[in-house]
């Protein structure tokens, strides 16, 4: 059931994630609370192992917390079951990953068509082609991922992320596997599309320059939110 909670698209309250390891209980996220407004671009930054990817996973409903609540687009995420969260992702969320996560057997076009097809839409090829043209890959529709460069693969991933017109896009180290020039172009594209579609971006990065392009940076350390930095550059 959707609840109207101001204009936040993400709201997190008292979020904790603990796992049991051979060395005992490990706290990945510790009593974390935050809000992200619609249309905002937010970077989650921190050192390796600080818990930022775990946070992203939970915000997107890919993982479940040990304690706490997350509202995504007004839905109490963990009151939904796994399939309910998947359905919510289908209608609301786009993803871009560090390792691109393209399906190797599918062409660029088919990869972009995938989320639309899973949503049951018919005749999705024109829409996907258009999106690929938008990211500058009009000539590469029928190439397989392994025939594309890293930058091109990430652009396909971005096209796939945005093709469903998501309200929020989660990106996990989107430039982590790219050289700086390519990374720069990819990021520019990401923000451009974000603006065009008036979407929210939540990205995990340890690229400070990238973080500065966002409205806010949430700094995580040892699973705790230690600082919220507003960027002036945006």
């Amino acid at each position, binding site marked *: 059931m959707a609840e109207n909670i101001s204009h936040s698209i993400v709201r997190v309250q008292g979020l904790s994630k603990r796992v049991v390891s051979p060395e005992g209980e490990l706290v990945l996220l510790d009593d974390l609370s935050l809000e992200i407004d619609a249309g905002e671009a937010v970077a989650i930054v921190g050192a390796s192992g600080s818990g930022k990817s775990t946070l992203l996973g939970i915000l997107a*409903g*890919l993982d479940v917390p040990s304690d706490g609540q997350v509202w995504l687009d007004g839905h109490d995420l963990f009151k939904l079951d*796994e399939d309910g969260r*998947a*359905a919510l*992702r289908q209608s609301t969320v786009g*993803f871009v990953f560090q390792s691109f996560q393209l399906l*190797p057997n599918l062409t660029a076009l088919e990869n972009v068509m995938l989320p639309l097809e*899973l949503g049951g839409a018919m005749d999705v090829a024109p829409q996907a082609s258009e999106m690929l043209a938008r990211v500058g890959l009009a000539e590469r529709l029928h190439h397989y991922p392994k025939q594309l460069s890293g930058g091109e693969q990430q652009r396909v991933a971005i096209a796939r992320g945005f093709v469903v017109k998501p309200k929020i896009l989660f990106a996990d180290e989107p430039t982590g596997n790219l050289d700086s020039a390519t990374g720069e172009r990819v990021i520019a594209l990401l923000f451009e599309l974000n603006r065009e579609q008036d979407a929210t971006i939540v990205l995990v990065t340890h690229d400070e320059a990238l973080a500065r392009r966002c409205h806010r940076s949430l700094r995580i350390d040892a699973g705790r939110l230690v600082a919220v930095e507003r960027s002036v550059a945006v």
Partner: protein
Amino acid sequence: MAASIRMSWRMLRRDWRAGELTVLSLALVIAVGSVTSVGFFTDRVRLALENQANTLLGADLVMISDRVISETLRIDADKLALESATSIEFPSMMMAAERNQLVSIKAVESPYPLRGELRISQQRFASDRVATGVPEAGSIWVDMQLLDLLGVNVNDVVRVGEADFKIASILTNEPARASGQLFSLAPRVMLNLTDVASTGLVTPASRVRHRMMFAGEVAAVANFRAMVEPRLQAGQRMEGIEEARPEVRSALERARRFLGLAAMVSVLLAGVAVATSSQRFIRRHLDSCAVMRCVGGSQQQILSIFMLQMLWLGLMAGAVGCLLGFGAQFVLVGIMGSLADFALPTPSLLPILFGLLTGLVTQFGFALPPLLHLKNVPSLRVLRRDLGALPTRSISTYGLGFVVLSALIVWQAGDLKLGLYVLGGLIVALLLLAGVAFLLLKVLATFRAHLFVEWRFGVTNLMRRPMSSVAQVIAFGLGIMVLLLFSVIRDDLLNEWGDSLPDDAPNRFLINIQPDQVEPLSQFFSEEGLKAPALYPMIRGRLVEIGGKAVQPEHYENPRAQHLLERQFNLSWAAQMQVDNQLIAGEWWTAAESERQFSVEEGIAKALSIEVGDTLVFLIDEQRVSARVSNLRSVEWDSFRPNFFVIASPGVLESYSSSFMSGFYLPEDEYLVLDKMVRQFPNITVIDIAAVMTQVRIIIERVTLAVEYVFLFTLIAGLLVMYAAIYSTLDERIRESVILRTLGAGRRRLMNGVIAEFVTLGALAGMVAAAAASLLGYVLAVHLFQLEYHFNGWVWLIGIIGGGAGIGLAGVLGTRKVLNYPPLLALREG
């Protein structure tokens, strides 16, 4: 659901394009192909029996009798407006200018055949036409084969018994051909019933099969049958269209079971290939699943997409398999069909259904457990690749597959007990083979340190995946074993059988010698400078009483006993016991005794529960002849000497009508003597044992060829198991080879490693196969056929070298991709 169907179809196309499904679908094609090839073949024979039953019978109802059938039956049939016709069948010699030949004579009268048609042609290989009527008096129709055998042509005159006949036509099709025997040893000669008397061939002691055929309205036929059946006497039976060709029916049932079970071995191996390749397919789709979950696919949706994908694949591969099976059955028909003697109709859809079912059952049985795992792949895997990995192979992976296959095997066997026996035997055999293969691998591993580096590399590769290696050794081992067993060992056994006969074992039999020809025949032999062979009197009688109790076939459960009581015995009399017989119980009679006595062969004594002291009553020429059993004796049947089940003491049988028979050895260069003899004594029938043995050999070869052919699918399935195993380790192999190549290993060296691995695998399989084939050969020779067993080194040489070379080549072809994969690409793909 509609979206899932669309998606599954697209995913299937995409995965197919990517080559992800090649091995999986080939395995299914082979499984379905092997099952349907057997299915189509047996189905065609079954349909021939069902749809053409009355054509095969030549009528709607036939009475078969070993004596003349009363004409009153015909009158009864007339009353019910049934048509009728009689025929008689017997073997005889036919003589042409230079040669003579044993033939199977069928004398018919119009309006034979009542159902179906006779087809004849005037020239060899010319197109034939439907015959109107039967051969005219004085003329005959013959099988084309006979023209070659006798060196004659249409319009030539030949002699049968004491009469000459003109060959009027070539007989190309005959309903009810050779009814009563599946494989006819003698070519057919058809003549007019009115001509039989002039041949002088049929006497009361002759072995003649009489038939009276009826046809008409279904109800009238049924009424007639109900009326006549209670009046049937011993030695008479009715055959309706339901029971037409019982011998073909039982041969078909055996073939269906045996070939069907042989095909199951391929299905089993294909199942292993399906399981292995499904594992790889699923492993390679874990990330895709996670991404699909991530972008909004529900568990149910993803599972149904993959399940549907498998279903489409199963159905399509099944369809291709059916086509393959349909093509393959033509070869089976080519091999086996010529042994049967009737045209086969096109098959029904039943084998297709069973084939598709087998394909789907195999596919889902072996692919379902890993497939279900996809449901559990967490979406978080997109961030953490270590999550949701496929568990290593376990009982659960193969368990379901083996359960459904076991059910298929039991079903194929058509009998729970037989099915369980086969299944148990298969499991024990597989376990034994696995044990041997594993031991061989272990032994090899201990020598590893002494091998060249490439071989060390190859053997290490085999040892690293011992279960997979053992599975491959078994798969190839089974295939190679069957090939060895049915080629080398079969020939060994046949040769051994031939060698086991004494050099002077009779190679010619003479039957139908009349009492007044005994003296002239002996004289003929001495005139020709040959030793006159011993002639044995032969009388036909039916056993009707044992120890004072009337016996009927239905009193016995033993089919042999039933068969013995249904037909007439060949009885003989003698003062002395034949030298190659051995007394088992009781005493042989002396000249001084006047008591009427019988001597009985131990085999039938056992089948019919006859003991020394029992009085047996035979019905001979409608008279009861009784005597006491005074002894039982054993007979060496495979000596080919004339022998009798029941021999009477002198004075019991002499007064009844009898004929004489003889078996003797005729040196091959003396065969002209027979021509002369047949001309002088035209009624005597000569049976050439060598020709019979050749026929038997041909039948054995055909049957084993068919089995070998079915096992060809097993070998292909074995190859698929290997390819599936190679493919399931392909990513790993590529990574390894790339690392080795970046470290400086040349392609040649890597290639040698691959060769070493697969040659070793093939040689091990060949060794296992040779051992198993030799063991089976030994068991067959010593325990089943009572032959001496000779070790044959060829089995081992062919097995090991053939296996090593064949599998080595296939392995190199299968791993080509590993060596040709660009290292940079592999490193980039991580």
